[in-house]
């Protein structure tokens, strides 16, 4: 009986193909909007997370101070020294690389061209920790690092701006007032998503940067790469413990440094995109509600229009529940078809939209199933009232209806 009813309702839908399509247009748009939003939102979360993890997976950044939100007027926290880096390297297990970072913004000049770059003074472990390969050339030797020699490894953006056609390795690059030998070229890495262009960098031994640019022996950040086989939490704790001792922070006093975990940043940013997605999806869901009301509207019109047909069915011997089922099934079949069309539309829309947005295309079956289920449910909810009205018709009155 149910199968027959479904067949009958499909026949009915086919008979009024244009009207049926217009009826479910609301559901089509609603489902398409919701699924597209969720799909793009998930893609955005994923894309942000992958961009953050492109900063380096399992990387900890140790920096002085308590980050943002600290009240003004407080005494500037004591900066790190290279001894802190050595201590972490020497005393903390489960880390693969520890590197100091001394940064300075300088103008790089080659031939007549000049370009503003971030000079990154560090050690040879930096590139290991970042899992950043060289496109050509070599990294600096321990001797060069110890001596703080003016050698540099340049990023792809620097090369593109200062050496459009030439090979930079082996040339002289003037950075600020310093002339340095270009010994290597970094592989292209792209946007970090939060930190701007990672390729606009010049890497030099930290001693060289301290001596030539910053003029002191401070280390701004310490980069710690965690062995992927270990949890980063306990390692963060032991680094924190070690630094508290070294900086003589007594028990009960707050840390005057902070440890950032790229994974935590990625999760936090993913959470923000998730919230945005939920809000936009909620707005899109309103169109689903409107779509449901559209179905109810047309089903009510349809019941009135088909009063005589209902009279015929009742006279022939249909019981009230069968008439109810017929109209209910019709509404559910309609809205489910609308849901399917909406899903197809969402598939095409998401596939096309991720291209200009430069995001991965993630087609998740879960959200599709949920959206389809909701569209079918809309048919049940908004089809019930018209169906009940049809089932309650008096056969004599219905047959007399013009």
């Amino acid at each position, binding site marked *: *009986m149910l199968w*027959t009813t479904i067949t*009958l309702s499909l026949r009915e839908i086919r*008979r009024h193909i244009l009207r049926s399509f217009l009826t479910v247009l609301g559901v089509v748009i609603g489902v398409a909007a919701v699924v597209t939003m969720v799909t793009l939102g998930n893609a955005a979360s994923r894309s942000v997370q992958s961009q953050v993890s492109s900063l380096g997976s399992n990387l900890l950044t140790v920096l002085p101070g308590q980050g943002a939100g600290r009240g003004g007027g407080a005494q500037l926290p004591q900066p790190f020294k290279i001894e802190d880096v050595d201590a972490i390297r020497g005393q903390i297990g489960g880390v693969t690389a520890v590197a100091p970072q001394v940064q300075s913004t300088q103008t790089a000049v080659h031939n007549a061209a000049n370009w503003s770059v971030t000079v990154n003074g560090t050690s040879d472990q930096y590139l290991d920790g970042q899992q950043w390969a060289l496109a050509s050339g070599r990294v600096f030797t321990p001797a060069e690092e110890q001596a703080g020699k003016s050698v540099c490894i340049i990023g792809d953006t620097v090369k593109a701006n200062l050496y459009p056609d030439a090979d930079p390795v082996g040339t002289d690059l003037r950075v600020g007032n310093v002339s340095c030998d270009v010994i290597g070229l970094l592989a292209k890495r792209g946007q970090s998503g939060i930190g701007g262009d990672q390729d606009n960098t010049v890497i030099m031994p930290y001693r060289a940067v301290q001596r030539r640019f910053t003029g002191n022996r401070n280390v701004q950040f310490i980069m710690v790469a965690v062995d992927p086989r270990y949890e980063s939490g306990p390692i963060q704790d032991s680094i924190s413990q070690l630094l508290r001792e070294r900086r003589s922070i007594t028990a009960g006093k707050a840390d005057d440094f902070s440890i950032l975990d790229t994974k935590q940043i990625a999760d936090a940013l993913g959470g923000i995109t998730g919230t945005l997605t939920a809000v936009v999806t909620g707005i899109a869901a309103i169109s689903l509600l409107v779509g449901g009301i559209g179905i109810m509207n047309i089903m009510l019109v349809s019941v009135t229009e088909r009063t*005589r*047909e209902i*009279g*015929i*069915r*009742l*006279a*022939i*011997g*249909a*019981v*009230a*529940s*069968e008439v109810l089922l017929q109209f209910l099934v019709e509404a559910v079949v309609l809205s489910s078809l609308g849901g399917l069309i909406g899903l197809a539309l969402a598939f095409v829309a998401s596939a096309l939209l991720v291209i200009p947005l430069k995001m991965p295309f993630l087609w998740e079956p879960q959200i599709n199933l949920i959206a389809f289920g909701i569209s079918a449910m809309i048919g049940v909810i908004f089809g019930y009232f018209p169906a009940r009205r049809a089932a309650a018709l008096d*056969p*004599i009155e219905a*047959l007399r209806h013009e």
Partner: protein
Amino acid sequence: MPESQPASQPASQPQPLISLQGVTKRYGEGTAAFQALKGVDLDIMAGDFVAVMGPSGSGKSTTMNILGCLDTPTTGAFLFKGVHVENLDRDQRSLLRRHHLGFVFQGFNLLARTTALENVELPLIYRGEARKTRHDMAMAALDKVGLADWSDHTPSELSGGQQQRVAIARAIVTHPDVLLADEPTGNLDSQRSIEIMHLLTDLNQTSGITVLMVTHEAEMADFARTIVQFKDGLVERIETGHHRRAETA
């Protein structure tokens, strides 16, 4: 089931198929109330061909609605095969219609944009027949009314006479005990009307279906064996053993 209903009941079985006992019907309440039936007593034997006649407002349509189990009497008893229909609820009456009654209307009442075959199959769908059975039974019924070649035509592609024949096929496809026809020739010209009456007479005689027909045309009533005349909500006169025109023609 219809095979067990011979066209003429033996005299030893006086039990009527349909029996109305003191049936009244009032519409509305208070001063607006209208007494449509004022106490109708009527027995119809299985296999009869009854024409119900009378001026409009005489109660013949109300009686037909009650006999068709579409309406219930205000007071009085309606027995169908010994069952008190006045005590049945809406769905039970639907099931009774589904299994025992067939309807033919003045306005044909076929489903639009639906082929003749699909129209005739409709009652079988509610009886839960399988697709193949449905198709075979519907084709047999269409064949009986002479429209087997028109099975895939929709009502708009059929003439009035053909539409009414499809409606008759739909009414008889379930082999009902009773065929209720409300002015079946009201929308047809006289030539088509006579064809329809011949068809009904034939179904009555060969298939043993009891036919109850409302008409206001004496010419059509001439085909019936029993003529029931209504006036002012009462049965005025019952003419039995009518000399049937079909038998002499």
